[in-house]
């Protein structure tokens, strides 16, 4: 049946979603307004409707897929009733981020003809849970059946009724009448409370946190219940306690104030783009967060240590969400799953899709810290200045590689060019010299750590170098090292980010006051005495410490790179250059020599020898 086309381009009577290049360029430059985000949301709505239709069509072919639950027709009819009474209730359910992840996950199961975490009828039957929740929002009188997983009956966007159940997978009945809702099975029933966000006997409500800063409002669900809130597979509830909810509330309140204060121009867009957060436990010295393009509006975030970290993470995830929506409309790169890029924000090689996402997200992070640093009051914010300088350098470095990649489409090149328009001029903005040195060290540390684990030097060159060393030659003949090789997917050794963590601790201190670093360095996971010596500028002690670490484990990546950093700090240039530019070569040659002689060379002697002819 043809559809009215309004003002869009018609195609066989259907209108197509469009995006103006002005909106596209604004999104690329990180200045997209709420209107552009809402247009992405409208496209997501259409996309989810299509997926719903596709799912129903696929499952209608095999009625037994719904197991003990009613057919998809029943759920569809309820959704149609919801739309008639309250279109906004249907829209709310379609906009729910985990409607998208559920649809994508279930479609993959159906396409691949495999079973997921639960029996197939539990996954396809989640459609009834969505319809029931929409009916509750609409205030309809209704009756239906929904899946019950480990005794939990999820009503998306609302909460979870807890019932006794003999089986991990069973069915609950839901009755709604005159605004009263009851969820039950043969063993128990739960009457939902008038305020569904409140907990009650047998009911966990999804809490909504609303933050206000001036005229700007951010309102998000803190969703610790929805089974489709994860990235890959359905997950069981992980209910937060009241203390944790309070902590999140306080952090979000402060973070929102920081965003509104420092980035007022995009606060409205962030408010339009984020409506659900999945809280995860804190991870010391790390700030993990994640999102998926299927869950437009949602981010999974580990509880951060402070409001500034959370603000930066919200901006980061907002960029991922926006780009995820854009990629559903416009292809920015062709399919290329090869993991061939270095990125400073991940320890492993990345494919072009991940690189584009990372460049855009860390462009946002850079903008946040830049604004924070520039807001400098009487005491300049060292941490903000450090993070700004670090992320502008590193994002620019990766963007330089990305922008010329032939896998980008013309639109992709335009998008990356838009980022560059903003990010480029920031490269010249002044940062205190002391912080620039630390930023350079953190960048060199991570890059060398990636090379030593993921790049395999040419076997022939390694053999030539080992033979030349053993023959006592001043240099080998015609050895070519400066070839960018394709990374391998399997790392040669593990990595520790401890040095970067220690440097960040030192940055958090006022200059010449290292109390925090001295007090807490030993709590940093994986930190060694040599790392601590390096972070406190005692390069001779650090070099001695890394030599000792290599004497115990001659393959340890962090010790080879640490030795290079310490020697760089001491001005020992040829050895430092080889260890930071070609650490994979130095280690490989050292390994080869170890297999051929009992006289193992000192790591820095070998590095200095290689460093004499590498640049």
């Amino acid at each position: 049946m043809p559809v009215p086309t309004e003002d869009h381009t018609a195609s066989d009577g259907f209108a197509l979603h469009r995006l103006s290049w002005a909106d596209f360029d604004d999104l690329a430059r990180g200045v997209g307004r709420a209107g552009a985000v809402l247009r992405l949301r409208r496209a997501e709505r259409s996309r989810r409707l299509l997926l719903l239709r596709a799912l129903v069509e696929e499952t209608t072919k095999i009625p037994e897929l719904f197991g003990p639950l009613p057919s998809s027709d029943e759920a569809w009819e309820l959704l149609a009733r919801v739309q008639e009474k309250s279109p906004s209730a249907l829209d709310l359910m379609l906009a729910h981020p985990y409607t998208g992840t559920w649809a994508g996950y279930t479609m993959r199961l159906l396409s691949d003809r495999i079973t997921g975490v639960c029996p197939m009828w539990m996954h396809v039957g989640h459609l009834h849970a969505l319809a029931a929740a929409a009916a509750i929002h609409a205030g309809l009188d209704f009756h239906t059946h929904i899946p019950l997983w480990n005794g939990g009956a999820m009503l998306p966007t609302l909460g979870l009724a807890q019932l006794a159940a003999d089986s991990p997978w069973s069915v609950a009945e839901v009755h709604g009448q005159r605004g009263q809702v009851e969820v039950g099975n043969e063993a128990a029933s739960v009457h939902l409370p008038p305020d569904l966000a409140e907990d009650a006997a047998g009911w966990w409500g999804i809490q909504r946190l609303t933050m206000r800063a001036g005229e700007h409002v951010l309102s998000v669900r803190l969703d610790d219940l929805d089974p489709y809130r994860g990235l890959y597979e359905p997950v069981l509830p992980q209910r937060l306690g009241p203390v944790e909810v309070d902590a999140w509330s306080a952090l979000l309140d402060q973070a929102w104030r920081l965003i509104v204060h420092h980035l007022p121009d995009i606060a409205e867009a962030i408010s339009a783009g984020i409506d659900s957060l999945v809280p995860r436990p804190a991870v010391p010295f790390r700030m993990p967060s994640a999102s998926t393009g299927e869950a437009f509006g949602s981010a999974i975030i580990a509880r951060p240590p402070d409001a500034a970290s959370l603000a930066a993470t919200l901006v980061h995830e907002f960029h991922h969400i926006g780009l995820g929506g854009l990629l559903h409309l416009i292809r920015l790169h062709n399919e290329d799953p090869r993991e061939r890029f270095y990125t400073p924000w991940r320890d492993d090689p990345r494919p072009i899709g991940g690189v584009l996402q990372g460049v855009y997200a860390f462009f946002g992070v850079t903008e946040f810290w830049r604004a924070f640093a520039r807001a400098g009051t009487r005491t300049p914010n060292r941490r903000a200045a450090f993070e700004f300088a670090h992320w502008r350098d590193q994002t620019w470095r990766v963007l330089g590689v990305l922008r010329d990649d032939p896998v980008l489409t013309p639109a992709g090149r335009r998008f990356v060019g838009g980022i560059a328009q903003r990010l480029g001029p920031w490269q010249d903005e002044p940062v205190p010299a002391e912080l620039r040195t630390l930023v350079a060290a953190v960048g060199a540390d991570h890059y060398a750590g990636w090379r030593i684990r993921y790049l395999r030097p040419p076997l022939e060159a390694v053999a030539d170098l080992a033979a030349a060393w053993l023959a006592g030659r001043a240099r080998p003949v015609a050895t070519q090292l400066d070839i960018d090789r394709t990374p391998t997917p399997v790392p040669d050794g593990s990595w520790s980010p401890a040095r970067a963590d220690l440097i960040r601790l030192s940055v958090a201190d006022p200059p010449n006051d290292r109390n925090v670093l001295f007090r807490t360095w030993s709590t940093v996971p994986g930190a060694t005495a040599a790392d601590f010596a390096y972070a406190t500028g005692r390069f001779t002690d650090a070099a001695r410490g890394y030599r000792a670490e290599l004497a115990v484990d001659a393959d340890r990546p962090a010790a080879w790179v640490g030795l290079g950093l310490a020697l760089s700090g001491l001005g020992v240039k040829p050895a430092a250059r080889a260890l930071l530019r070609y650490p994979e070569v130095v280690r490989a040659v050292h390994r080869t020599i170890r297999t051929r002689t009992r006289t193992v060379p000192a790591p820095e002697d070998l590095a200095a020898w290689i460093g004499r002819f590498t640049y």
Partner: protein
Amino acid sequence: MDSFSADMESDAESELIDLGAVSMTALRELSGTVFRQALRHVMQQTVHPQVTAGGGSEAERVD
């Protein structure tokens, strides 16, 4: 194949049909070549969902 209009001067046009004015009842009955293409397009997009995760090592993933 690029999934949008190559004309950089006009708006970027996607392969996604706009269902903003379509009721649930009508959606159930839609058919035709363009609609089928649109269904295939979104189904194809679910094969490789975009997932981003960062800020932690493998042992510290939040997913």
